[in-house]
């Protein structure tokens, strides 16, 4: 009943002790040290005890042996003395006479024997016997024993041997010494002197001297006849010593001491040693315990103080550093460390904190960046299962990111597992694969560039799939293409405009010359050819201008634009393409102007016209017709309709036609940007673009644009007066200068200069021209530089400059020209525009 709680209590105590130990290195060290010391002490004690026991045992046995030897010697001396006396006595005349003198036995022998016996060191029995052992005399008054006919008698009395026997008598061992008595008359033994020496009595003397020791005589050959007076048993420590009495050495003196007497001291020594060691161990344990408690207490106190110092925000805190021992030294070291730590600047700490926070921020940002990345980022395992999916990917998939995980990755692209297997094989080989794919979502097809990068994480194969929406990229690429086309067109225009300038100028000069010289004198056919040549040249000029306009849309500020004119320009630009297989019906009404950047609308219209032309199927058997119409709507907007009789737009495609890069055309036929760009332009202008389409019958696009406000200063200036005065033409192309000189030479005094430097030199002195026509693009000195230098020498003269240009090559020069504030006329110059420009710079 009481065992259970006691065991539980013990178990708790043991657990507590164990935890207590495990919490303290010092205590472990102490336990180990004490345990070791305990074991060592035990071993040394045991070893010392064993050695001491062996030494003491040997010493005791040696002492016992010495005692036995002493006792043996004393016994032998005593017995030997008696036997020597007996030998002498056997030769004594009284003894020998007793053999033949019965009367003398009473008179002399008996007193002699008794006297001899009485003076012996031990109570011996002396007897003289005849040749058959019969007693002739003995020292005892009443001798009960007789040696008559004893078996040993003949050996003494017949053979004259001295006989020593040890017999067990009633009072213990008796050594019987029989010496033959030689009768002088015969010279032969005729009797014997027998001495019986009670060895027991001698041994008893020893025992009396040392009461605790046991002595006995033993005859090893006759073990059944112990001759001692005491019994030796196992409780005794026994040593034996050979007794040389009688010469045969058979007898042994056996000396025994009780174990208690022999080894009592040893046992007391052992107990005292053990007690001493146990006491020492207890003392060591207590002292060690106390020491460990002090040490651990100091260390624990120090630990707590260090923890306080670590968590405390209060500056200047210190741990206790008492004493000069290791704990004190440790405390002092901690204090030094604390001081050093405090010495570190707060800025450093703040910087560290900031850096860390920055790193954490960067990590968060990286996570957020991945999450918020425009591009879908997913991690796919080797089986094609999505392991991770960011927000963009979720949006791409149209499902939450969590729902995407675990789904088949290839399903995003409407592909099957076989396709994925091929992709994975290729990815493992090439490590990185870029795939152009499309995503179909809600009826929309999104072109994407998918980059797969292979990697292994913890031995598992994965890949990162980056799905990038390339719609904007493709759009930019198309824009860039258009820009390149514009630059090309500008270059072409510049190169064409210069020759066109003098072609058209010279033709006009010839026509005007012919008209002025001989009104109607020129035959009709030649006049018509000249007029057609002039029209052809003007048509070249218009095409070049349209090309420039198309290639550089949206530049410059919005301005009032004549929609019909834009439509006409567009038709001119693409007319050649469509007129081959379609009939173009133009129904252009006068409509209000709209606000737009130059050429923007032309771009829209060109697109619509090109699409219409491509939608036509001349081999379909139906009439191919493109109808272009513009008119004002009742609500005041301007409507432009472009319709065709083509294949129409399929119903499933219709919702997507304004999406970027959506195309139904074969690769190479279109960029897919056309309608989306048109949609963007029209929407930006505040208009709308829509369509009606019936597959197989045709399509009609309708653009509705808001009309510009009422015209304030849009009065068309009257036809300019022909230029007068002196005009200097500076152009590096001599053909251009000559043509201008012919055209202007009719009304003005024209001088030309093909070298700007020489022109500047001429302008340094009179006569000063009233207008200076200066080409913008000249080798060495551009138009604006020419103007600048002229301003430097004669600012007034510089205000008479009119730039003429075949088309600005670069935006920089265009801007520089615009910045001069001087008028600029494009080549081939319109005669009215040129006249107005010259008029504007002529001094009044």
């Amino acid at each position, binding site marked *: 009943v009481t065992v259970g709680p006691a065991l539980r209590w013990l178990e708790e105590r043991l657990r507590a002790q164990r935890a207590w130990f495990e919490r303290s290195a010092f205590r472990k060290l102490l336990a180990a040290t004490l345990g070791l010391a305990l074991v060592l002490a035990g071993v040394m004690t045991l070893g010392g005890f064993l050695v001491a026991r062996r030494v003491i045992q040997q010493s005791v046995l040696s002492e016992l042996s010495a005692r036995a030897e002493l006792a043996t010697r004393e016994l032998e001396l005593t017995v030997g003395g008696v036997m020597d006396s007996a030998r002498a006595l056997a030769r004594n*005349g009284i003894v020998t006479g007793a053999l033949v003198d019965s*009367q003398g036995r009473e008179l002399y022998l008996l007193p002699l024997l008794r006297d001899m016996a009485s003076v012996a060191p031990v109570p011996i029995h002396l007897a003289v016997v*005849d*040749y058959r052992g019969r007693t002739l005399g003995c020292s005892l008054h009443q001798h009960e024993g007789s040696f008559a006919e004893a078996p040993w008698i003949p050996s003494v009395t017949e053979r004259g041997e001295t006989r020593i026997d040890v017999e067990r008598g009633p009072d213990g061992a008796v050594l019987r010494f029989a010496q033959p008595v030689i009768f002088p008359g015969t010279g032969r033994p005729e*009797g014997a002197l027998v001495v019986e020496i009670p060895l027991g009595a001698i041994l008893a003397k020893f025992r009396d001297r040392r009461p605790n020791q046991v002595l006995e005589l033993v005859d090893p050959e006759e073990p059944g006849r112990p001759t001692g007076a005491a019994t030796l048993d196992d409780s005794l420590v026994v040593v034996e010593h050979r007794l040389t009495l009688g010469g045969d050495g058979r007898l042994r003196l056996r000396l025994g001491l009780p174990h208690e007497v022999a080894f009592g001291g040893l046992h007391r020594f052992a107990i005292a040693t053990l007690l001493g060691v146990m006491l020492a161990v207890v003392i060591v344990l207590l002292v060690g315990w106390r020491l460990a408690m002090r040490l651990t207490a100091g260390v624990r106190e120090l630990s707590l103080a260090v923890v306080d110092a670590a968590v405390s925000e209060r500056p200047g805190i210190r741990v206790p550093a008492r004493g000069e021992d290791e704990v004190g030294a440790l405390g002092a070291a901690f204090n030094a460390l604390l001081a050093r730590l405090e010495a570190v600047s707060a800025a450093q700490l703040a910087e560290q904190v900031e850096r860390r926070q920055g790193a954490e921020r960067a990590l968060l940002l990286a996570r957020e960046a991945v999450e918020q990345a425009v591009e879908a980022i997913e991690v796919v395992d080797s089986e094609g299962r999505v392991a991770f999916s960011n927000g963009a990917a979720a949006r791409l998939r149209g499902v939450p990111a969590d729902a995407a995980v675990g789904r088949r990755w290839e399903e995003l692209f409407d592909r099957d597992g076989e396709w994925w297997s091929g992709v994975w094989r290729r990815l493992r080989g090439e490590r990185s694969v870029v795939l152009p794919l499309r995503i179909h979502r809600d009826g929309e097809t999104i072109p994407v560039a998918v980059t797969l990068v292979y990697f292994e994480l913890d031995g598992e194969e994965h890949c990162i799939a980056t799905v990038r929406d390339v719609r904007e990229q493709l759009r930019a690429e198309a824009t860039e293409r258009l820009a390149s086309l514009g630059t090309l067109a500008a270059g072409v225009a510049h190169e064409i405009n210069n020759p066109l300038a003098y072609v058209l100028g010279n033709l006009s000069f010839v026509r005007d010359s012919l008209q002025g010289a001989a009104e109607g004198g020129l035959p009709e056919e030649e006049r018509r050819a000249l007029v057609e040549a002039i029209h052809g040249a003007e048509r070249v000029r218009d095409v070049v201008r349209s090309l420039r306009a198309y290639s550089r849309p949206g530049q410059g500020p919005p301005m009032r634009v004549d929609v019909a004119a834009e439509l006409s320009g567009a038709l001119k630009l693409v007319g050649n393409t469509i007129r081959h297989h379609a009939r173009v019906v133009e129904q252009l009404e006068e409509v209000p102007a709209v606000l737009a950047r130059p050429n923007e609308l032309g771009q829209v219209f060109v697109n619509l016209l090109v699409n219409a032309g491509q939608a036509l199927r001349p081999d379909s058997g139906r009439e191919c017709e493109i109808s272009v119409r513009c008119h004002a709507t009742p609500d005041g907007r301007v409507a432009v309709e472009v319709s065709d009789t083509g294949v129409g737009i399929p119903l499933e495609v219709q919702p997507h036609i304004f999406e970027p890069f959506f195309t139904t055309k074969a690769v190479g036929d279109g960029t897919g940007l056309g309608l989306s760009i048109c949609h963007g332009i029209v929407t930006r202008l505040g208009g709308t673009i829509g369509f009606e389409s019936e597959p197989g019958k045709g399509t009609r696009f309708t653009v509705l644009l808001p009309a510009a406000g009422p015209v304030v200063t849009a009065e068309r200036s009257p036809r300019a007066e022909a230029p007068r005065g002196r005009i200097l033409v500076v152009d590096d192309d001599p053909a251009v200068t000559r043509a201008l000189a012919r055209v202007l030479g009719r009304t003005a005094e024209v001088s030309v200069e093909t070298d700007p430097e020489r022109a500047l030199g001429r302008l340094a002195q009179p006569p000063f021209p009233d207008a200076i026509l200066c080409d913008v693009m000249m080798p060495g000195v551009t138009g604006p530089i020419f103007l600048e230098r002229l301003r430097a020498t004669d600012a007034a003269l510089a205000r008479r400059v009119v730039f003429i240009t075949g088309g600005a090559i670069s935006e920089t020069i265009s801007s520089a020209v615009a910045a001069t504030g001087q008028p600029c006329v494009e080549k081939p110059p319109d005669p009215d525009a040129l006249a107005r420009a010259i008029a504007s710079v002529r001094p009044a």
Partner: protein
Amino acid sequence: MLLILAIVAAVAAGAPAEPARPVLIGLDLEIGHKTSTSDDAIRRGVLVAVDEINRAGGVLGGRPLAVVERDHRSVPARGVENIKELAAMPDLVAVLCGKFSPVVIEELPVLHQLELPLLSPWAASDGVIDHGRTPSYTFRLSLRDSWVARAVVRRASEHGLRRLGVLLPNTEWGRSNKAALAEATRGTPVKVVGERWYNWGEPSFLGEYDALLADGAQAIFLVGNESEAAILIRELAALPPARQRPILAHHGVMGGDLATMAGEDLRKVDLSVIQPFFFTGRPIERHVLEAARTLFGVHGRRQLPSPAGFAAAYDLTHLLARAVQKAGSTQRPAVRDALERLGPYDGLVKRLEHPFTPERHEALSPDDLHFGRFNAAGLLEPADR
């Protein structure tokens, strides 16, 4: 061998074809004694007598006498055993002892118990005969200590040697002599001025001798045997004459060949030895010497160094034969009785009218004792002749 000799002798004497069982005579002698010649003398005396008797037809109608011998080595204990053994023999009629009285003294109880007659040709102690037992089975044809004492006192007195020193063996024999001497000196001018006791086997007596001289002894009475006598003679011979005193020696000194043992020193000392018998040249003496020569190869008296023992044994054997004859049987009590009733016998020692009587078992008398001295030939001659 002697027994065989006796038997052969008997046969040769013309015994009946069917040999009668011999009548045995026991000898209990000190054969093993080193210097003793007494045993030889006694045995020879007995055998010469047996030879004569057997030649004469034996006893009891033709039964030869035969001798059975036992050696007691002068040790009484052995003698007692010998007596027992001899007594056990049915045809043994008596025993002759040797010269040692102590042996006989100790044999007395068993002798009388077994009713075995003992005839002493030598043992001289008074106790051999005077032991008080009746009927006494001991008989002696020799001298007697008390007679010796008187003879010594008488001779000392005759030679004016009034102060006697005595050397005595520490035995019953010595004490017997002391008592006898005390009795003998009573009423005489001779006084015993000193007595010195010795034990058998003493190597020297010079101390005792000097002590006796210091006591004022004019003569020394030596009670001893040939060993003591020979030692004393040699020691005295080495002394200056002034320190030499006459030695009156007991019969015991003739128990051995003293002449040989003492050698030339024998003539340097004044030694007188008391004897019951001397060869004096009588016819019987020549007869027995011849017989001894025939039987034992003994040539002359010098080869019989203990003549008294020889003569006494010879006479006692004849007396015993006569007693057996007289008893008519080998019954030992009858023989003993017959010994007391023998008629006159003309023996070698002397003629005995009544050798023994119931009251007297001594065949001799004090007057039969005489002192003798050794002559140059080593033969003991009567001193007074």
